[in-house]
């Protein structure tokens, strides 16, 4: 047996198998080491898959040797290999951080369960990305969702429970809509394989059940990716979850949902069906702009830093959706680049906020007065990530906005350039609220004994902050992979 052939299956099986084993071990350290090994192995596998796809093109793996479209197919192409690398990479950074972080935030007897849930969530997210089967996608979506509801409910604040409940209701409605959509497609075509669906649907894209399926899938996936105005679950879920969970979900969960949307839009329904026969372009443009402006404005008035940056996430998802609405290779490149850049930036930001919680016990703005005096490095890191959210040159956020503006100019929509810059000014406003409080206010008396974050928290956070800066300078990895993936989605390149 050749191991290299089975890499796509191992990508999912390793983290999935580590979850029940972690529960059975019952020992905190052993569970941590096991899940860490599985996560790092998944990251290594995703890099190998990415290299292989770069060399030989898309790969197909038949689970149990049942050939597609009869069996379940795992399919790795340029887009999914990039997303696999992103999700497992973020997990590989967040998991070491979580060990020290949950010591402070979660009761010790629940630690093994935390690691098991983390592994389950990771395998669900990876599964959505790798699978080539519509129903399998739903199952993985539910694996990741159910584990993230439980992860959010582990938060110390009792509001984490209501946040988790709200997310469960919204998420399940979303998932049910997705199953209805998939069911309608299955009734029309008799297949569940995404590639096969794409071929068979071409003859019937204007049939009413297919349009209904499109509507159900769009609403269902939009609930999951927190597209404005379906984002109500997100701010509380991110604000009250344990720090490590906030960072992991903020960086990966919505991004993987964007992947599912791209997959259904471009690989299943096809670009012509969606953007040329239906007014999806205008619809997505309006929703994206509304998200960018409304969520950024709401973010300015938040008193809790985690909530503030959660609203900023909704606004940043607006940029991602804006890229899809252009329906061009440049626009999709911007979407995919921003997917990666925003994941790295927000991941780093939430890890740093976790370090702040460890230092001063909370992240309300009132409590962070004079934070930069006692935790200079952490505050500086938060400012760097904030600059990337604004899109200052030299940070990752600039690269994504650059491509968005290029795509807008390509379409001749110069007024959009103005709006993109204007919404960045709103980002300046909410990042400035942190800067003002942390740097220009006198520290409160009770911050005197607070010291800089411990290395176990600082190192993972700074890896992501470093990546934010690196992707702002060297764009060969992000833009290179993204443009290849965009060309593949639009069928311009093989």
């Amino acid at each position, binding site marked *: 047996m050749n191991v290299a052939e089975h890499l796509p299956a191992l990508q999912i099986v390793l983290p999935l198998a580590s979850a029940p084993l972690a529960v059975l071990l019952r020992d905190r350290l052993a569970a941590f080491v096991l899940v860490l090994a599985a996560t790092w192995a998944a990251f290594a596998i995703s890099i190998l898959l990415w290299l292989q796809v770069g060399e030989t093109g898309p790969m197909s793996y038949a689970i149990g040797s049942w050939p597609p479209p009869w069996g379940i197919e795992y399919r790795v192409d340029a887009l999914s290999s990039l997303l696999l690398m992103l999700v497992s990479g973020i997990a590989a950074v967040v998991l070491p951080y979580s060990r020290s972080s949950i010591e402070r935030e979660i009761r010790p007897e629940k630690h093994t369960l935390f690691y098991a849930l983390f592994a389950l969530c990771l395998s669900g997210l990876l599964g959505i990305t790798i699978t080539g089967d519509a*129903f399998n996608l*739903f*199952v993985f979506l*539910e694996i990741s969702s*159910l584990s993230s*509801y*439980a992860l959010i*409910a582990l938060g*110390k*604040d*009792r*509001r984490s*429970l*209501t946040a*988790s*409940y709200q997310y*469960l*209701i919204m998420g*399940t*409605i979303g*998932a*049910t809509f997705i*199953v*209805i959509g998939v*069911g*309608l497609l*299955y*009734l029309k075509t008799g297949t569940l394989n995404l590639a096969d669906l794409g071929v068979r649907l071409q003859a019937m894209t204007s049939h009413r059940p297919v349009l209904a399926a499109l509507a159900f899938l769009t609403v269902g996936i939009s609930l999951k990716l927190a597209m404005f105005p379906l984002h109500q679950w997100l701010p509380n879920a991110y604000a009250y979850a344990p720090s490590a969970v906030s960072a992991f979900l903020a960086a990966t969960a919505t991004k993987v949902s964007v992947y599912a949307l791209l997959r259904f839009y471009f690989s299943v329904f096809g670009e012509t069906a969606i953007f040329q026969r239906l007014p999806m372009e205008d619809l997505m443009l309006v929703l994206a702009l509304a998200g960018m402006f409304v969520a950024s404005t709401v973010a300015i008035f938040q008193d809790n830093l985690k909530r503030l940056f959660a609203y900023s996430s909704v606004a940043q998802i607006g940029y991602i959706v804006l890229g899809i609405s252009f329906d061009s290779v440049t626009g999709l490149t911007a979407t995919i680049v921003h997917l990666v850049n925003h994941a790295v930036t927000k991941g780093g930001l939430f890890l740093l906020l976790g370090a702040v919680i460890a230092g001063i*016990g*909370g992240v*309300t703005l*009132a*409590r962070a007065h004079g934070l930069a005096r006692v935790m200079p490095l952490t505050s500086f890191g938060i400012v760097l990530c904030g600059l990337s959210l604004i899109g200052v040159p030299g940070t990752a956020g600039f690269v994504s906005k650059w491509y968005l503006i290029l795509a807008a100019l390509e379409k001749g929509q110069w007024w959009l350039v103005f709006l993109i810059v204007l919404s960045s000014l709103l980002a300046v406003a909410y990042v400035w609220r942190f800067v003002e409080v942390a740097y220009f206010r006198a520290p*409160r008396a*009770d911050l005197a004994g607070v010291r800089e974050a411990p290395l176990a928290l600082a190192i993972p956070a700074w890896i992501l902050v470093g990546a934010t800066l690196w992707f702002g300078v060297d764009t060969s990895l992000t833009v290179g992979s993204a443009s290849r993936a965009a060309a593949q989605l639009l069928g311009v390149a093989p």
Partner: protein
Amino acid sequence: MNFFSHYDYWVMLFLAMSGLFIVIARGNLIKKLVGLAILQTSVYLLYLAPGKIVGGTAPIVDAAFTVYSNPLPQVLILTAIVVGVATLALGLALVVRIREEYGTIEEDEILRLDADPADQPSGPPEAQR
């Protein structure tokens, strides 16, 4: 095509919409979950009803039978049922925990408790330190 030729879809739609309505209109967290369960169950019908062909048998190759029903929807829905049970169990577990922490399972009361700053465990920083 008349109304009755597709009555299974109408049943499914009615169930789905009543489930969704309960989720939106009810303030009681348990009742919301009941609505959610009805919504999820309605989808099972969407898959299962068209999978049955009148007079069809299980797909076993034999000269005596020519009409077969598709077994795949049943397999899919078996998975969906498991997912639905897991969701309901997790939701109920959350409601138990919410009841322990807030002492109520009415949405408006929980919102009132959250909005009242004096009632919050992580309230003003001075109080905690």
